[in-house]
Every structure is written in C-alpha cells, then in structure tokens.
C-alpha cells in the first residue's frame, strides 16, 4: 500500500482541480453537520436551563394547573380551559396536613408606566404566601397586608429591575405606577436575586394582590379564578405522597363524577422536570433526525460526484494500473478523496454550526450550550459518511480493466 502522505496529496490535488464542484458537493455535509450542532446545542441548552430554573423555584414545591393530563403526561395543560380557583388552594392548605402553604398565581405580561418611562414585564397576582414559599424578602417597604387582599388594594411590590427601568435613581416607595392604565401605589421592593441559571432575570417582576388581579386587572371567566396554585409541602417525600389526597379533594370540589377525567394537573418539581426533559428530548431527536437526513443526502451527493470523478479519470486509473497500482491502491485513492471531501465539509459545518448556535443563543430566547462531544460527534459522522458513500465508487474504479481504461477517451 502506498504511503498516507502521497495518497493524501493525490486526493487534495483532485479536489483542488475541481474547486467549485467540491464545494457544491460538500454542501449537503456542511448543512448536515451545522444543523446537528445547532440542534444538539439547543437541546442541551434547554435541558440545562430547565434544571436551573427548577432550582430557583422553591423547595418541596407542588404546582397545580388547569388542564387534562394525557397518560404519557406530555400535556401540561397550557392553553386549556381554566378550572382552578384560589379557594381550591386555601382548602388544600387547610385540610391536608402535608401541605404548609398554597399561593395563588394569576399572571399576565403587560406594560407598566411611570411618568414618561414604561416597561413591559410579567405582572403576578398573588399573596404573601408566595414570598414565603420562594423565601424572598423585601429590601425595603412593606408586604401585602390582609387588608390589601381583602379590599383588593391597588398596591404593588416591584423587583429591582423594574425599579431601575422605571425610576432610575428616584425612590419608588409611595410613587404611583400605571398597570394597564390603572394607578398602583408602590409599597415595597424585593431583594435583588440576579439571573437564574438559564439567564432569566428574576428581578424583572411586579407583584400585586391576587384579589386586585382578579377583580381589576386581568380578565377572568369565573369568580376567584387563578392560573395555578403553588404548594409547599412539609418535606420532599410529601410532594409525592400528598398528591393523591390533593387530587381527591379537588375532584370533590370540582364536582367530577366517577367517569370524568381530572380537570387539573398536579406535579412536583421532579415530575415537571422529567416532563419538560422528555419534551425537549423528543424535539432533539426530531431535529437530530432531520439533520441526519441532510447528512445522508450529502453522502449520496458525494457518492454521485465520486462516480462522475471515477468515470472522468478512467484513463488516469488505467495509467496507474499499467504502472503497478493494485486494486487497493486505487480504492484508497478514491476513498481518501471522498473522505477528505466530506471532512472538509464537516469542518466547515462545525464552524458554521458553532456560529449558528452562538447566534441562536444571542438572538432568540432559546438558550444554547455547546459541548465538545456535540462537535466531535457530527464531525466524525461526516467522515463515516465519506467512507461509506465513497466505497462503492472506489470499488468500481478498482475493478477497471487496465487495457479498457487506457483506451478510454
């Protein structure tokens, strides 16, 4: 067998002789590899951000949402008909021993105005139990009082980011901001928490009393409606064991007959994480297979161009054979050519893929995370594609009869 350096220089010479064609041929590989890298980094990033988000939500947490859970648990109830009430949470807290706290949540993203400044953020209607669950204290000002809740007072507690955006250096306490045009008095500011693991700004929040949210700010379709209820159990074991009790209580309160499905979904943090992970896994697999298809198509493109190349160079093959090239010498020559072609495509694909993941991370809400494995995997796969799809053309070349090959015009 001839030495690697010589065979490599033969391959690169042939590729350079047809630059444009080589670029077009590797395009499929380039796109495939780049796509795989972007997909994997998005999938990886999503998973990491879910885990980080879960960590910041509070301990021993159970969340109840409206909606129907399918048997696989894949549907979390987003967009389904609201069924939960604040009083459901109160009843759970009162009747079920394993549950310490039940905070109602009704939220909406909206515009907030102070003087000339305005800021768009998520406004959450809740009560003081939310801050106990999150173990989140005020930096200054006061908490919602029972009177605030009872009377649906127009008072607000702000996160530090909202304060910075609306007030700058001005002291916000006692000032009036407008939420959906309704005036609210700022009564407190929360201790800054900074970014969560996935880059979400936890201080970009506005809290108002749940009753105010229900009656004055957000549209609800029945009295006492909430979006979800956050429960804190007494210990982590209870986040599992209390679920059946909660379920029975809610079925009773919602008057669900024996044949009726639950109209709510109960999940603890671990279950939520598993659910979200399984949905990003599905996405990763789906997108990954799309990328694999483009790698496959790229491979077929390489096979096609290598077959053309073998035909074009029949005379060259004849000369090499006459001079003493054996079947494997010819095979290696063309295999190396398709390998180099696909690895160049793979390399360009890696560069574009890394750039793409970076851009997706910067310009979209999807967090991306690149790891060495996710770069090496598609790159080495491009090499395997080159070998696999290069083999048939190389094999065909090696079977040529030297006399016929020499006579080929």
């Amino acid at each position: 067998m001839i030495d690697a350096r010589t065979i490599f220089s033969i391959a690169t010479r042939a590729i350079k002789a047809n630059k444009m064609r080589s670029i077009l041929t590797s395009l499929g590989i380039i796109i495939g590899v780049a796509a795989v890298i972007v997909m994997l980094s998005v999938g990886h990033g999503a998973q990491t951000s879910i885990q980080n988000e879960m960590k910041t939500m509070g301990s021993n947490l159970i969340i109840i949402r409206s909606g129907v859970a399918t048997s696989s648990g894949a549907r979390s109830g987003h967009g389904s008909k609201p069924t939960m009430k604040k009083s459901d949470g109160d009843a759970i807290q009162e009747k079920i021993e394993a549950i310490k706290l039940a905070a109602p949540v009704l939220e909406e993203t909206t515009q907030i105005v102070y003087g000339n400044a305005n800021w768009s953020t998520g406004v959450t209607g809740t009560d003081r139990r939310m801050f106990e669950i999150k173990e989140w204290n005020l930096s200054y000002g006061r908490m919602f009082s029972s009177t605030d809740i009872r009377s649906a007072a127009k008072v607000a507690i702000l996160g530090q980011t909202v304060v910075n955006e609306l007030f700058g250096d001005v002291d916000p306490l006692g000032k009036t901001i407008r939420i959906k045009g309704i005036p609210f008095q700022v009564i407190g500011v929360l201790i800054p928490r900074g970014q969560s693991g996935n880059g979400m700004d936890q201080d970009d929040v506005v809290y108002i009393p749940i009753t105010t949210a229900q009656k004055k700010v957000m549209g609800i379709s029945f009295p006492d409606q909430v979006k979800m209820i956050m429960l804190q159990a007494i210990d982590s074991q209870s986040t599992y064991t209390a679920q059946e009790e909660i379920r029975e209580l809610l079925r009773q309160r919602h008057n669900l007959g024996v044949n009726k499905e639950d109209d709510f979904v109960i999940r603890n943090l671990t279950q939520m994480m598993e659910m979200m992970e399984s949905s990003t896994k599905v996405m990763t697999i789906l997108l990954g297979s799309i990328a694999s298809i483009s790698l496959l198509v790229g491979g077929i493109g390489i096979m096609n161009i290598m077959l053309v190349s073998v035909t074009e160079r029949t005379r060259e093959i004849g000369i090499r054979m006459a001079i003493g090239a054996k079947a494997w010498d010819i095979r290696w020559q063309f295999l190396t050519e398709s390998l180099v072609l696909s690895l160049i495509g793979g390399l360009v694909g890696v560069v574009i893929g890394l750039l793409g993941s970076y851009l997706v991370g910067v310009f979209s809400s999807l967090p991306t995370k690149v790891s060495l494995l996710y770069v090496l995997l598609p790159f080495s796969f491009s090499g395997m594609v080159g070998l696999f799809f290069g083999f048939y053309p190389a094999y065909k070349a090696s079977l040529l009869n030297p006399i016929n090959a020499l006579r080929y015009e």
Partner: protein
Amino acid sequence: MSLIELKHITKSYPLEDTQLKILKGINLNIEKGDFVAIMGPSGSGKSTLMNILGCLDKPTSGTYVLDGQRVENLSADELADIRNRKIGFVFQGFNLLSRTSALENVELPMVYANVPAAQREERAKKALTKVGLRERMYHMPNQLSGGQQQRVAIARAVVNEAPIIFADEPTGNLDTKMSVEIMNLFTKLNEDLGRTIILVTHEDDIAHYAKRIIRIVDGEIHSDEKNEK
C-alpha cells in the same frame, strides 16, 4: 532460459455467436538484452500481443513464462506487481498524468513500489536528467512538446530499473526529428544499460533501430529475423 517464452498463445474476442481469433498460436522466445521490433499491417494483432507480453491482458490459451515465472493465470494484483517491478511502458499517446509535473509522473512507479519519498525524488530527477529534461522537471505535460512528453514517459519506464521496456508505436505521434531522438534514447538504453526493448511499429525506418524484426500477419508470426544494420 529466455527472458520471455510464449507457447501457443491465442487470443480471441467473442463476436456475436462465434469467437473472433486475433492471435492464432504465437510461439516466441526473447532473450535478455535483445531489442525487438514487432511489425505488421494495422489490425494484425501487434498491440494485442504487446498487451499480453506486458501483463496488461491475459491470453485465451497458451503459456507465458516471464523471467522464469508462469504469468498467464496470475491475479490482477499479482500482474500489477510484475508490471511494477519488471516492465516499463511507453505508449503512442504518452499517457502521462495531466496536472502532474514531469517529476511526479516519473515518481509514480516508485510510489507503487513503496520507495520512500526522498529517494523517489532523487531517482526521478536522475532519470529525467538522463533523458535531457533537467530544466523541465517541474513542467506540466501540457507545457511540454510531444517529444519531451515521450521522454518523460521513457524516464518513467526506466526509473524503477525494470528490465523490459514495451513501446507501442512510441513515435506514432511525433515528427521525424523527434522520432530520431526517441529512437536514439532506446538504443542507448539497450546498449548502455542492457534493457530489453520490445517495440511495435509499422515504419521500416523505426524498426531498423532494432536488432531483431518480427513480422506479424493476421495474428501469426510471418517472419522473424535478425536486423542487418
């Protein structure tokens, strides 16, 4: 023992439902150091015989002993090995690799003989110098005249120290002056280096450079005589 011994060599090609006999029982011995011209009308089977002698093709029947080794039933790779070590070819159409310098073309047989790169280059340079192309080593074939290309081909044929050189109408594409240069080169190779040369031609002028002239008519040896210079 002769360098080449052919016994009852035949070659046929299938033609519709019969066999077209091109070579009809060739018996031939060629000694080491000989310079043989094979002549004959077009289509008489000269190239066919040459391809069998050069281990590029296999006979339909008969035996061929080359340098003491039976070769008619060897595999493609074994034949490639024999071509590499024992045979150099010079073709009518030069058959150099395009986009490849004269030097690299001459290195080619050594590439397949696994000669280390540094040694390859040195030997190729020496061979090119001997055929008078010292100044043209880095030229591509399309930058060389026909005569120069053929000299590159000759350098390539001798660089591996192959004892036999086969040349099929090597001057067919060249003018008279260039033909004389090329034939003088062959003569030198034969006389000074003792290489066995077997040359196919249909021109008497060219054949007269040889020591022995074999005439083929219709796939059979018609005459075989020493050339009186």
